[in-house]
């Protein structure tokens, strides 16, 4: 059943796993509670392991951001005040830090760092295609999140960095982002596309070779030559950052593959997210990333699959009248209305049955999971929204005690 053969020293609890790692990347499809789980894991690490722990979140719910004191901070990291943790009943040995990802700011920083000179940097920053690329383009978030992670890790400021990944259409996309970025800037296609503009000398004039002429003729018909020229100019400028950029993208990729980095996949026990999670686990292993943990979030309690519970629910429905009679007789005035009491009994019985169908489906899906990492944590559906540090603390308790069975 294990993705990795559990050796004598295989990590079996989250604290063991995290003790040996410097980076944990939380991933999973949208809506599974990735952000809260990542924040809870970081909080748990400060309690169990101490040290300086940073949670880098991408798009936290507003109340959670407020709870962590993240509002209006942009890219800056900030320490969650110890009083806030103490007020939530948490005795942290370490420091909890939090930061958000400001995509646009991160891209701008990247350009300023890698551009050969200031003029080129500003030419890029002011290009309308650049603006489009960074502000609107969803995939650009993938790369920049990993890039920021690298930057923070390189600063050496934290013992552990917990990162929540951006919501992508496909959870696997961001894994390939650094490689794709490097490929993209090094591609022959890019050189080929910008070639006429490079050797043409004068702005606006182009020199074609035999191979590219038909393409340009067609592209001009579809897009108009001005647009194509804008693209080419943008990439000519961007290409000046090529070597710095590619070196960096490769370093980012190495860091993700490093022994100090592990991945945790978060999912609920619903068919679609679970399918995504399984594919994601497989993709991680295929690419030789370290798959450290699987978090099954928002699961229904096991008591919904208890045969005693099923029997009791059946009795509540079938014998509602008789039980109501007995309750009326027992004398609690709040239960004196026999019909009402009988109705409530039937309702709770039916509700149990309804939810137990879902709980069984969840259990079956859980059992069918083919490959799972050594650490599997289950976080039940909490009776309250997770929007504060206390909520995170309760998730963290489940995370750090392994799967309750």
């Amino acid at each position, binding site marked *: 059943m294990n993705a990795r053969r559990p050796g004598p020293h295989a990590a079996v609890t989250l604290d063991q796993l995290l003790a040996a790692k410097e980076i944990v990347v939380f991933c999973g499809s949208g*809506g*599974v509670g990735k952000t809260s789980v990542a924040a809870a894991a970081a909080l748990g690490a400060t309690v169990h392991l101490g040290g300086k722990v940073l949670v880098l979140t991408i798009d936290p*719910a*507003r*109340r959670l951001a407020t709870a962590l004191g993240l509002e209006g901070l942009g890219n800056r990291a900030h320490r969650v005040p110890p009083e806030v943790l103490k007020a939530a009943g948490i005795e942290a040995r370490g420091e909890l830090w939090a930061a958000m990802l400001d995509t646009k700011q991160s891209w701008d920083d990247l350009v300023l760092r890698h551009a050969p000179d200031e003029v080129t940097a500003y030419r890029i920053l002011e290009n*309308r*295609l650049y603006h*489009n690329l960074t502000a*609107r383009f*969803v995939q650009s978030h993938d790369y920049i999140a990993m890039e920021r992670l690298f930057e923070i890790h390189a600063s050496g400021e934290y013992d552990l960095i917990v990162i929540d990944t951006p*919501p992508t*259409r496909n959870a696997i996309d961001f894994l390939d982002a650094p490689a794709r970025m490097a490929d*993209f800037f090094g*591609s022959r*296609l890019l050189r080929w*596309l910008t070639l006429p503009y490079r050797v043409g000398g004068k702005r606006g004039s182009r020199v074609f070779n035999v191979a590219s002429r038909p393409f340009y003729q067609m592209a*001009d*018909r*579809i*897009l*108009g030559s*001005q*647009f194509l020229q804008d*693209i080419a100019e943008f990439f000519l400028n961007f290409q000046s950052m090529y070597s710095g950029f590619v070196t960096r993208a490769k370093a980012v990729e190495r860091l993700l593959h490093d022994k100090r980095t592990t991945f945790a996949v978060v999912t609920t026990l619903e*068919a679609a997210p679970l399918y995504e999670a399984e594919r994601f686990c497989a993709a991680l292993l295929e690419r030789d990333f370290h798959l450290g943990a699987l978090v099954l979030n928002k699961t229904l*309690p096991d*008591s*919904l699959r*208890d045969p*005693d*519970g099923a029997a*009791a*629910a059946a*009795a*509540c429905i079938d*014998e509602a009248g*008789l*039980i109501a009679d*007995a*309750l009326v007789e*027992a004398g*609690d005035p*709040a*239960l004196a209305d026999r019909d*009402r*009491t009988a*109705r*409530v*009994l039937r*309702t*709770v*019985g039916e509700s*149990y049955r309804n*939810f137990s169908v*879902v709980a*069984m489906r969840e259990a079956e899906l859980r059992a069918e999971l083919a490959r799972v990492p050594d650490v599997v944590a289950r976080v039940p*559906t909490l*009776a309250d*929204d997770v*929007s504060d540090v206390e909520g995170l603390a309760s998730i963290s308790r489940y995370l750090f005690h392994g799967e309750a069975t």
Partner: protein
Amino acid sequence: MRAAARSASARASAHAIVNGPAPELLDRRLLLFTGKGGVGKSTMAAATALLASSIGKRVLLVEVDAKGDIPAQFEHSPVGFTPREIHPGVLAMAMDTEASLQEYLRLNLRVPVIGRIGPLARVLDFVATAAPGVKEILTIGKILWEVREAIEGRADFDMVVVDAAATGHIVAQLGAADAIRELVDVGPLRSQTQWLSELLADPTITAVNVVTTPEEMPVAETIELVDHLRREVNVPLGSVVVNRVLPELFTRGDEETFDALSAPQSRDLLTARVGRGATDVLDAARLAVSMRRIGATHLEHLRQSVDLSLLYVPYLFVRAHGLRVTRMVADALGAELGL
């Protein structure tokens, strides 16, 4: 569950400030469904198509993200770019930007593409990365092409229902035609994006619907998205579909009875009658009540922040997915639309 759907319906109509009467939704030619990942966009698109087909319309169902979810909702094998009938009255196709480009070139520019599309696809991929809007325009362009075919009576269907991109991407997709005109100064692409924008903006033709669930993030994203769509694109909004609404277990009076039932003495008596599972049953009801309550606060926030009609689809306590579930959702939507 039916009772839940009915009461949800009553609540919805009490709060609805309708953008046009809700049943009229199915009279439009183009219905797009967007929303945060995981809220049930595909299910709503499929159920809407099924519902429309049940009142005699023929529907083209377009899957934009090509995950293969749509045919599965009808227990049909995956479909490609060419529409196929996957259920009586429901045709389906999966969006494919490369195929869309080929079709566009063939129909509009009479460019011979045979044998060329390989390198062209790579160039397209490249340009799409460089210039956001290209993939989007090929997607929305193809969809609107089919809508126009339907309006002008040349198609095998009356309306187009789209399982559209998620919240993060939909504004770019819907705004692509306008964005292209900002970037491209001349050429056929510019002139040909004009009619796209016009069809999209026509409230008798198009409606963008946002699917959500009664949870914090989906509700927050919905409110933000509605605001974005209003400010950034000229596209009429339809309804907000709230999926997975848990039933209200108790009336206020019943809830007091339930509280009394949970008190130690009554709990013991109940245990004596129904066995030690009594605690499981009471705890489960308690959890159901609190889950419903959390959802209700998010719903209230949604109602106060969005002035679109809300359609409620109840949480379905079912074992699996497939046509049966799609039909249940279609029935719930039908009830909400007063059909």
